[in-house]
């Protein structure tokens, strides 16, 4: 069992090694002639104005919050879904109550306009 997870670790490291090897090979083969204009940030030929790393709109944050709720819900659903045959009616009713509470929250989000992109 543990060896399976060590294998995953080897796959993880191997994937990075593959990318690294490709980049090293390319570094050996490629020319290297930098000059100031080439190293400018690309913006269709204009010089860049102002900083790039600025505050972003709040809509992204709202979506992230709603995603978090649904992701946690998925974590609750997975064990129920796997053992559905054994658990039977009580679990079905419990999970439906849970889902309905969640759906009420979802409808509230919808009504408040959290899902709208302005």
């Amino acid at each position, binding site marked *: 069992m543990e*060896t*399976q997870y*060590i*294998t*995953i670790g*080897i*796959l*993880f490291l*191997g*994937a*990075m090694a*593959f*990318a690294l090897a*490709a*980049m090293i*090979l*390319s570094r050996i*083969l*490629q*020319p*290297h*002639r*930098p000059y100031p204009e*080439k*190293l*400018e*940030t*690309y*913006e269709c030929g204009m010089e*860049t104005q102002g900083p*790039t*790393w600025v505050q*972003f709109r709040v809509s*992204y944050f709202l*979506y*992230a919050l709603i*995603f978090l709720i*649904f*992701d946690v819900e*998925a974590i609750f*659903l*997975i064990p129920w*879904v*796997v*053992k*559905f*045959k054994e658990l*039977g*009616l009580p679990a*079905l009713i419990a*999970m*439906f109550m849970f*889902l309905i509470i969640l*759906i009420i929250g*979802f409808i509230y989000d*919808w009504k408040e306009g959290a*899902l*709208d*992109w*302005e």
Partner: protein
Amino acid sequence: MEFLNNIFVYIAQWLRGFLAFLGFTGFWIEMFMAVVYLATILGICTLVALFYVLWERKLAGYIQYRPGPNRLGPKGWFQTIADAIKLLTKEDVVPKEADKVVHFLATLFIFVPPVLALGVIPFGQGMAALDLNLGVFYLLAVTSLSTVPIFMAGWGSNNKYSLIGTMRAVAQMVSYEVPLIFSMLGVVLLAGTLQLSEIVESQSTVWYVFLQPVAFIIFLICATAETNRAPFDLPEGESELTAGIYTEYSGMKWALFFLAEYCNIFVVSAIGVTLFLGGWSGPFLPGWVWFILKTHLLFSFFIWIRWTFPRIRIDHLMSFSWKVLVPLSIANIMVTSLIFYLVQ
């Protein structure tokens, strides 16, 4: 027939036997086999990218009533190899304003999600490198990791186009993750297991695409969005963001992103085949041939979608996920569980 069906299983068995003969103990045999699996998966990734880049260009050509690449080699089949050599010898330009460490790390991590995902996919009977009992859960965890290198790429570039692209990519992948998970849970509910090989075996009588048609359609849409393919390719959006997240990447680094994109589509097609289209099962031909054929068909379907639909607007994209797909997938789970309980 039986031999051809299990040829890769026999090779693995022979290799294990040979290692035991050389005097290795259990743990080291497993480690050695892990390296063999890794080499195989990387080989598959490279072949997939080389083949499908050309296949997509050919298919796109035929869809648009033109021949596509047809100069290099027989019918243009050597085009991708030439492209690969060209990209390998191109200068790698890193802008001086960029966060160089993050810019570099993004290319280092971009290959991790598809390789980790291919590790658990059963290409045939007993032909998964790792037959984890948490299969589907592991796949969900690993495929959602692909957001991280894309975010690193956009942030590290210190380019406004890249940052806008990256923000879109994260918002889109996060939104389509939810219906994707729910559509896969519908299959898990019917199979009663998370192990991928058992899910395939439970489809021996009827494929889940017939029992879960709604889930399959949701899966297809979300898979297109998760891999940032047209009509959901807003992060790249050439017409408005030059190349989006890839703007500041050149040469081999850009090629790695491109390669990883094709591997991701292959992974998503393979997951679709495993969960909905019966995996390796099929008559006459060996199982792994069936698996590759079905994956190829699904991959071609994704290419067909790309060259048929126009790109959609970001507000439509987000509201389609949250206002259509999420309610639909939750309803699908509820209806499936109710019917399944009543039939049982």
